């Protein structure tokens, strides 16, 4: 016998080589699928972002960084902040969407956790249903609510914000409404998992020490909800930056986000190289966001 070659793994007498080979057979199909249809296409995206659009919308294999300088606003007509503004606006919208969703999710979760246990399922289901409802339907539903014949638009007209008989869309306001409605369940669901298990003894202790509501929240409640909150923020901020359906239906040309810009390049403009460059910019923003979140999330966990 020689233990250099044999080992017992979960009760099975085998060799490391045999185990790795079997693990590879099992993992390879799925891994290769992702590699082939996501990792490699992403690399292609990088390559294509450095090519040039042909006259008929085809890819010309002429390499340059023109697409990126164009994204930065430089063109033969001089400098314009349009694209940068779209990028900035996407981050801005994602930030406020996330913040409002977090602010609304806390009372929502507290309220549900405060119901009798057998009733919580019902309340939780009320969050899960919109979560699983198709995004296109939900965005379109807001078009109906903001229609000119309905009270919201009429009220706005009375206030003189919009002319009488016109809808509240397309507008930044409509985009924000749609975004918050879309992502509120994404924050509430993971947050609820933490709120339900909250240790209220800490809150009682804080009360005994005559802490005010703000201090109680900050020192006794918030630290306990960091894990769920962290998941919720990731699930909201990153997809919100790349969101395409909501601004498309509710913002139109008036409030374009980076998702719409990408879609436009792959759709009507038929400018794949520039679309690829914009996609990469969004990917970079995502990675930066994830990185900030991870480092900040680490601090929160310690606190």
């Amino acid at each position, binding site marked *: 016998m020689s233990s250099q070659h044999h*080992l*017992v793994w979960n*009760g*099975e*007498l085998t060799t490391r080589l045999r185990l790795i080979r079997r693990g590879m057979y099992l993992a390879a199909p799925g891994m290769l699928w992702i590699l082939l249809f996501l990792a490699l296409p992403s690399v292609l995206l990088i390559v294509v972002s450095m090519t040039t659009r042909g006259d008929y919308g085809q890819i010309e294999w002429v390499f340059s960084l023109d697409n990126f300088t164009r994204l930065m606003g430089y063109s033969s007509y001089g400098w314009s902040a349009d694209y940068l503004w779209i990028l900035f606006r996407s981050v801005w919208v994602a930030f406020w969407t996330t913040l409002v969703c977090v602010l609304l999710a806390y009372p929502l979760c507290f309220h549900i956790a405060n119901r009798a246990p057998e009733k919580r399922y019902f309340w939780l289901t009320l969050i899960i249903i919109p979560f699983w409802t198709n995004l296109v339907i939900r965005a379109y539903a807001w078009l109906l609510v903001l229609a000119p014949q309905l009270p919201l638009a009429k009220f706005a007209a009375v206030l003189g914000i919009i002319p009488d008989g016109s809808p509240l869309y397309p507008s930044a306001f409509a985009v924000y409404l749609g975004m918050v409605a879309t992502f509120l369940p994404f924050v509430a669901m993971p947050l609820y998992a933490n709120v339900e298990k909250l240790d209220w003894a800490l809150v009682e202790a804080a009360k005994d020490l005559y802490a005010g509501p703000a201090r109680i929240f900050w020192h006794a409640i918030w630290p306990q909800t960091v894990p769920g909150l962290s998941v919720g923020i990731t699930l909201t901020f990153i997809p919100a930056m790349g969101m395409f359906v909501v601004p498309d239906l509710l913002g139109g040309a008036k409030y374009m986000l980076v998702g719409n810009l990408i879609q436009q390049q792959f759709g009507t403009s038929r400018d794949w190289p520039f679309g690829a460059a914009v996609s990469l910019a969004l990917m970079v923003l995502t990675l930066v966001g994830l990185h900030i979140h991870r480092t900040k999330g680490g601090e929160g966990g310690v606190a």
Partner: protein
Amino acid sequence: MSLEAYAIYKNYGEVEALHNVDLVTERGEFFTLLGPSGCGKTTLLRIIAGLELPDSGTVMLTGGNVTTLPANERNVNTVFQSYALFPHLTLFENVAFGMRSRRLTGSVVTEKVMAALAMVHMEDKKDRLPSQLSGGQKQRVALARALVNEPEVLLLDEPMSALDAKLRHAVQAELRQLQQKLGKTFILVTHDQEEALTVSDRIAVMRQGRVVQCAPARELYERPVNRYVADFLGKANIIAGRRAEGGVETELGLLRLDSPPTWEQGELAIRPENIVFHPERPAVNGLRARVSEAFYRGDRVEVWLEPGNLRMSAAPRRGIAKGDEIWIELLPSALVPLHE
């Protein structure tokens, strides 16, 4: 000879889990591996079960070499510390698993499973799932599941550590009775010295991957080879001394003992219950001592004595109290020279 292991070595990286361990059990013996956590006892058990491979050494089962035989081909079964019952199977199917996996079918299986469940008094719960059982019940099922396969050796990995103290005592007695009735070889791993003394025929005390002393339970308690064993099983007074004419010279005077030491200078051990009270000066090993503390423990009084900071266990009816001056005798038959 039931199970033998010779010269077993096992390292995990830098950590030496087992160092040159030998183990020989007789057929029908209740054998216990006793030691603190990390002493290698569980590793040794897993090597016997085939769940680990030794770096070197030989494991023999009824005379045949099984060192590299896979676990599923060894005629050895294990009761796991977590019991490891299959949560998706009923108790009946849990117990039947070992026969089903060998493609046995028919009424033989049913009969054997029911007999095994009856043996642990669980036959009326055969259709329950493990999640519906208490810790003690799970342990019984794990026992039945292992024994139904009629293994040559049954291995038990701390099977009682999850039970509360009262239940543990009852289960210890049952386990011992069961083993006696079946006449099978049981090898138990535990860190609980009382448990080991209660159930075992023989005990191997382990430390840092080595067997320190392997002896029948009573011998181990009464004649520990060194301070580690003396301390691990029960309490012991340790008295330093030097060999002299007729005994050992200590700070308490010349102590006689039935088995003289082989060393020149060393230590003696004596259990608290072997220091006995005398109304007047005893003939040998007598000592006038002052009671510095006396703790009433119900069934006995724990007495602290000066000089020598001795611990003595006395019957409550003696009425020994703090401050008393008494005569004691250190029984010569119970004074044990230690080695290290």
